[in-house]
């Protein structure tokens, strides 16, 4: 009953004129970001964080940023299918079969299947969020410092383990994020730490400056190196509705993708990319005609597109209930809540029900807006690719610099932005996964406080993390995943050696 009351309250928040407008703007901007290659959802959300300082209501700010995040998941499929150009990472696998379908004159069907799948999965994901959110938030009220330490640590390490890139590189970006967050005043003793005598650093780095530098400016620097111009290909899209046969092939893939994506989206580091990749692998394995995958299989579009949308909805669960961001984009939304003076976590639902339920309700509305935006306007989105990077790049740079200056009215922040931009550029050049960096940065204060408090509670004994049931379970889950990863890696290596020997 409480859930329905909360949801009704949420709809009363989400359906106000301002919030509807910002949900629409977020979905529109997100779709554009998804369409355009080179600027991902994390970068765009980071670019718009300074704007949220000026948005009076926290619910409106988060509704806007959430719209960008799930809008990007929708938009990414359009260019993947029509142009073989994934606008963001989660749509890479959609391009494999979607583009083949478009080449065979079934682009319209592929777009419709992707949009319908995204809508169904997105809505199922939000229903899951509605149902699972409140009990999880209630459960999290039992957490003390050791549980929070275990949860944060396990979340961060899982983000590294599941990111798919090198483990050592992931750990480096994770530790770098923790270290950067330590700069400034020690919250317990008040001692100045690691500022190298720079007075401006005593209050620490601003998250927005770090995020805009590493994701916004870093991506611009990296894109400046790429000289390939995007070629606009105009193909016959075909009819914008799937046939009965295509629908029959798609429906179970949509359902499976939704469930799988929801599960993967809950995991820190899981997110939309891992969800779409896992769904593609699952569909291929379950298919009676696996040879059709890569040649225009309907399930190869329906499954991954559903999975990445379900995952993007599910990743709000750990944010809103536990205060743990599941990926870099969600870390930006976490920061937006902090900017608005709210602490994401189990108290959010009780203390700020308008934000908690307003955001959830806006996601139902956002899913409808996205279907309306994506299918009829498909031609417009493809035309957006005509905007050259020589125009887009300088505008993003200007928005980034003025945005960062606006936070503290300090030119010092512009220098820090440049520093983080250069860092982001080299992270990309050297193939370091930058995702764990903002996650570690935003979670570091919670991690440090929880660790110090736990050690004070246990009089210095580390066993406190393994003797309390919840923290011990979390550590156990983490150990199981690590062991499974190691065993999987060893098996793969063994299989490769065996293949070489043969």
């Amino acid at each position, binding site marked *: 009953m409480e859930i329905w009351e909360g949801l009704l309250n949420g709809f009363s928040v989400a359906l106000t004129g301002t919030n509807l407008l910002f949900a629409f703007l977020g979905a529109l901007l997100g779709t554009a970001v998804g369409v355009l290659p080179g600027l991902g959802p994390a970068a765009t959300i980071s670019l718009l964080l300074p*704007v949220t300082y*000026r948005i009076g209501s926290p619910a409106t700010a988060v509704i806007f940023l959430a719209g960008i995040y799930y809008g990007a998941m929708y938009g990414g499929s359009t260019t993947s299918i029509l142009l073989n150009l994934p606008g963001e990472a989660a749509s890479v696998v959609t391009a494999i079969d979607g583009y083949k379908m478009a080449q065979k004159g079934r682009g319209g069907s592929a777009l419709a299947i992707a949009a319908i799948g995204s809508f169904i999965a997105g809505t199922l994901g939000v229903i899951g969020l509605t149902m699972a959110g409140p009990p999880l938030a209630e459960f999290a009220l039992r957490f003390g410092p050791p549980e929070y330490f275990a949860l944060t640590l396990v979340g961060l390490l899982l983000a590294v383990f599941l990111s798919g890139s*090198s483990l*050592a*590189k992931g*750990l*480096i970006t*994770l*530790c*770098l994020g*923790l*270290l950067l967050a*330590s700069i400034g005043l*020690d919250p*317990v*003793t008040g*001692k100045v*730490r*690691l500022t190298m005598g720079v007075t401006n650093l005593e209050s620490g780095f601003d998250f927005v400056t770090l995020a805009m530098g590493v994701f916004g*400016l870093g991506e*611009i*620097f*990296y894109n*400046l*190196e790429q000289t390939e111009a995007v070629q606009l290909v105009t193909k016959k899209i075909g009819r914008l509705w799937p046939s009965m046969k295509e629908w029959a092939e798609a429906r179970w893939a949509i359902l499976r993708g939704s469930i799988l994506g929801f599960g993967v989206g809950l995991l820190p580091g899981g997110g939309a990319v891992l969800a779409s990749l896992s769904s593609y692998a699952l569909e291929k394995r379950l298919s009676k005609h696996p040879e059709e995958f890569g040649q225009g299989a309907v399930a190869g579009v329906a499954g991954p597109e559903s999975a990445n949308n379900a995952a993007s909805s599910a990743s709000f669960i750990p944010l809103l209930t536990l205060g743990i961001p599941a990926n870099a984009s969600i870390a930006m939304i976490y920061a937006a809540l902090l900017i608005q003076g709210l602490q994401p976590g189990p108290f959010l639902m009780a203390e700020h029900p308008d934000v908690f339920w307003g955001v959830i309700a806006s996601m139902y509305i956002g899913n409808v807006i996205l279907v309306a935006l994506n299918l009829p306007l498909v031609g417009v989105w493809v035309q957006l690719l005509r905007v050259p990077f*020589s*125009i887009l*790049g*300088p*505008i993003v*740079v*200007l*928005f980034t*610099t*003025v*945005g960062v*200056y*606006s936070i503290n*009215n300090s*030119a010092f922040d*512009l*220098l820090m932005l*440049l520093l983080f*931009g*250069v860092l982001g*550029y*080299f992270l990309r*050049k*050297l193939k370091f996964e930058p995702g764990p960096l903002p996650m570690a940065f935003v979670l*570091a204060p919670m*991690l*440090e406080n929880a*660790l*110090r408090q736990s*050690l*004070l509670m246990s*009089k*210095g*004994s*580390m066993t406190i993390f393994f003797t309390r049931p919840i923290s011990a379970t979390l550590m156990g889950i983490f150990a199981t995943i690590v062991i499974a990863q190691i065993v999987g890696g060893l098996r793969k290596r063994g299989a490769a050696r065996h293949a070489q020997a043969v």
Partner: protein
Amino acid sequence: MKKHERMAALVVLIVGCIVAYHSATALKIGSLQRPDSGFFPFIASAGMALSGGWLALASLGQDPNPSPFWEERAWMRPALAALFLLLYALGFEPVGYVISTFLLMVLWQWVIERVGWGRVLVMSLASTTIMWFLFEKLLGVPLPGGFLAA
């Protein structure tokens, strides 16, 4: 890639060791019973140093597909962009938003993007004005007037 990874790993290893040493000596780690200010930075920097060492070891040996870090002069455009932004950051307050932003846009498009003068001027004027309107007027951010305001 291995060579570049190795160099990056060594930089991480050295930075990690320096910060860990500083955390232990200047900030003090304290004890497990009573952690001090250097406790958390020490753990983070030690973790960074260890991961850097691990990456350095993993990238030992010959590179099967050696490739240069930058193709030909690919570094030029990012380096110029960083230089222009450095000048912009230094001149933003003394010179003021309007002139510094207009110059940044002109330099960026003319030198980095190599677009024609007509488009350079139109884009620079338009973007400077729109951004001023958005931040100064709509969002109420006081942008520096520089010597024009004096």
